[in-house]
């Protein structure tokens, strides 16, 4: 009896490819993503931290230090910029460095103030401080750079100043003993950090569940196919384009409401500053919900049954959410994974929300994210329309 039941289950699993993928492929995919982010091979190749250096001192010592930083394989150092429409080519100054951090181009910048070289190394706490301009959305970056700054300073000393008798022997863990004293300034804002972290998670979770609810809502098409109401609706003057448009608008509005409720809850219970960022939130939520709704329709029209949609959407959305930063910040990932994450819907949506809530960026700075989300919306809708042709006149 039991063997018969086992045989039925075995045959069913063998013929259900979605169930096979859920059982074997999804766990491996998740394991691989988490392993790449938090351990194993990636830990031996820590992602290179991007850092800008503004040399206001322009001394030999500051130049040596910058060269030593550039030689460090853990860092990707920029001390000059190419000319562009918004700025001239040349060395990076403090204002430019701050703008780069604010804009999310890199997580941290080092400013070596005028006169810094004359007080290097910092012995007995008398050295001038290098200023670290940090983005608090990446709490790791500033600490890593602070540590690597000391390593670079030690290299400078070993190669030159060390000959004068100075050494790092006195350097200990406290700031007074550091070769380069530092002072961290959060240029994206140094207040309400916990609220900002809440907004990060609110956005991450909201985008992931927006995708789930959109794919589930899109699945109504499959329910209607099953019940015959789809055929009945298509027997009226409503065409397939009108039908999809109706579903898409509904799912978009529903998605906006879903995100709004979540952020309102965050504001009421966790002190998330929603009112202070309302315009950016509204624009990002509209664009994100529109793209998620269109994506839900793609999944639904690509699936043959509710069961298939359920499996497919679980796999696709969880993987996208993991890669795209809904589960953990993308800055924890290697550069290649961060680049890979940009193919996901989540990454662009979250980058937009981060610009609004963390960087307090002006609305115009959302254009890259909005462009991508709107383009994705159009592409998804077109794909859904093509896939839905199977329900049309045959």
């Amino acid at each position: 009896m039991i063997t018969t039941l086992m045989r039925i289950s075995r045959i069913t699993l063998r013929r259900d490819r979605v169930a096979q993928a859920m059982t074997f492929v999804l766990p491996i995919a998740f394991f691989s993503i988490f392993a790449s982010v938090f351990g194993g091979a990636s830990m031996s190749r820590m992602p290179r931290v991007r850092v800008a250096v503004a040399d206001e001192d322009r001394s030999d010592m500051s130049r040596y230090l910058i060269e030593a930083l550039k030689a460090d394989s853990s860092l990707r150092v920029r001390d000059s910029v190419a000319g562009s429409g918004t700025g001239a080519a040349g060395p990076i100054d403090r204002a430019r460095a701050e703008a780069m951090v604010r804009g999310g181009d890199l997580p941290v910048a080092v400013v070596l103030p005028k006169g810094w070289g004359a007080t290097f190394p910092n012995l007995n706490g008398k050295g001038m401080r290098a200023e670290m301009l940090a983005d608090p959305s990446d709490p790791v970056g500033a600490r890593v750079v602070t540590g690597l700054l000391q390593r670079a300073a030690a290299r400078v000393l070993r190669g030159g100043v060390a000959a004068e008798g100075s050494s790092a022997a006195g350097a200990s863990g406290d700031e007074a003993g550091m070769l380069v004293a530092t002072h961290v300034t959060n240029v994206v804002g140094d207040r309400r950090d916990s609220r900002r972290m809440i907004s990060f998670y609110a956005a991450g979770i909201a985008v992931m569940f927006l995708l789930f609810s959109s794919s589930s809502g899109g699945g109504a098409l499959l329910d209607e196919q099953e019940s015959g109401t789809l055929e009945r609706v298509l027997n009226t003057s409503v065409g397939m384009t009108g039908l999809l448009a109706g579903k898409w608008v509904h799912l978009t509005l529903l998605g906006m409401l879903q995100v709004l409720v979540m952020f309102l809850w965050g504001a009421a219970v966790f002190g998330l500053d929603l009112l202070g960022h309302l315009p950016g939130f509204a624009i990002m939520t509209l664009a994100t919900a529109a793209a998620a709704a269109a994506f839900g329709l793609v999944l639904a029209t690509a699936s043959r049954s509710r069961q298939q949609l359920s499996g497919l959407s679980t796999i696709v959305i969880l993987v996208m959410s993991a890669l795209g930063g809904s589960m953990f910040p993308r800055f924890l990932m290697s550069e290649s994974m961060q680049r890979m994450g940009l193919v996901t819907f989540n990454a662009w949506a979250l980058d937009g929300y981060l610009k609004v809530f963390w960087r307090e960026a002006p609305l115009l700075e959302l254009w890259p994210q909005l462009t991508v989300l709107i383009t994705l919306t159009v592409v998804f809708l077109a794909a859904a329309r093509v896939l839905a042709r199977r329900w049309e006149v045959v």
Partner: protein
Amino acid sequence: MTATIDTVPRSTAGAVIPALRVRDAARSFGAVRALRGASLDLREGERLALLGPNGAGKTTLIRAIAGRVRLEAGAIEIFGRALPPTERVRRLGVVPQEIALYPLLTARENLEAFGRLHGVAPASLVARVDWALEWTGLRDRARQPVRGFSGGMKRRINIACGVLHEPRVVLLDEPTVGVDPQSRERIYEMLEELRAAGTSQLLTTHQLEEAEKRCDRIAILDHGAVVASGTLDELIAQTVGGERDLVITLDRPVAQAVAGFSAENGGARLVARVRDVGSELPPLIERVRGAGHVITDLALRRHGLHEVFLHLTGKELRE
């Protein structure tokens, strides 16, 4: 239903134009030829039963008439014209076999939704929905979700959703499948009301008795073509003829059938084919009695649609 027919449409030659005409409809799906030149006429104000074994092409034909299947050859005309899709959906009412309703919507909400989708003018929507609730006998249940309705109630709302826009031709795909006799009776009363208002109805069914008793004419579809059509009497005359079976029940089984009879029920019944009842019946009875058998009962069995259907489509399973 308030639609009325002012005049009987006629061609310029004076011939009556059918409400629906299908001519040589052909369509294949891969190697399967679903329709092979099917033709039929649905006359104005009549109810035509479309019968056929499973896989004969009934659903494809209905979907082609509704504009949901593109024909490779042939033509479909409604009141003498091949209509563009937008006008076709206005003239046609389609009632699917499935209960194609939104289960969480109430009866009224379903009717309103399909009324709007069918283009019922907002000004007359409430009146049409009220009419439909009255017509289906579900006014008292108007505000309840159809999810909790019985099968018969759902069927009635299902039909109503397809005729809210007052189509002059209604296609009904097995409108009484799975309902009890009382509901079936009510559904045919509803269809009768529609017909009285001038609506022409093409109805598919596997219930031969319904086709026999409830429909004006019958068309039998097999292998994608209409193999016979007409009234029941015409079909009988065209196929199995006007012969009847004489069935004689005996007081005890016989070991050997009497000449001219076949034995049934283990020899307890004798059956003979009779063409002319008046002249053939007495000698047959005499022949049985002459063989020493005692007749306890006697009946004449008329051939019906069942025999016609099997005669035309055979007894072989189709699926």
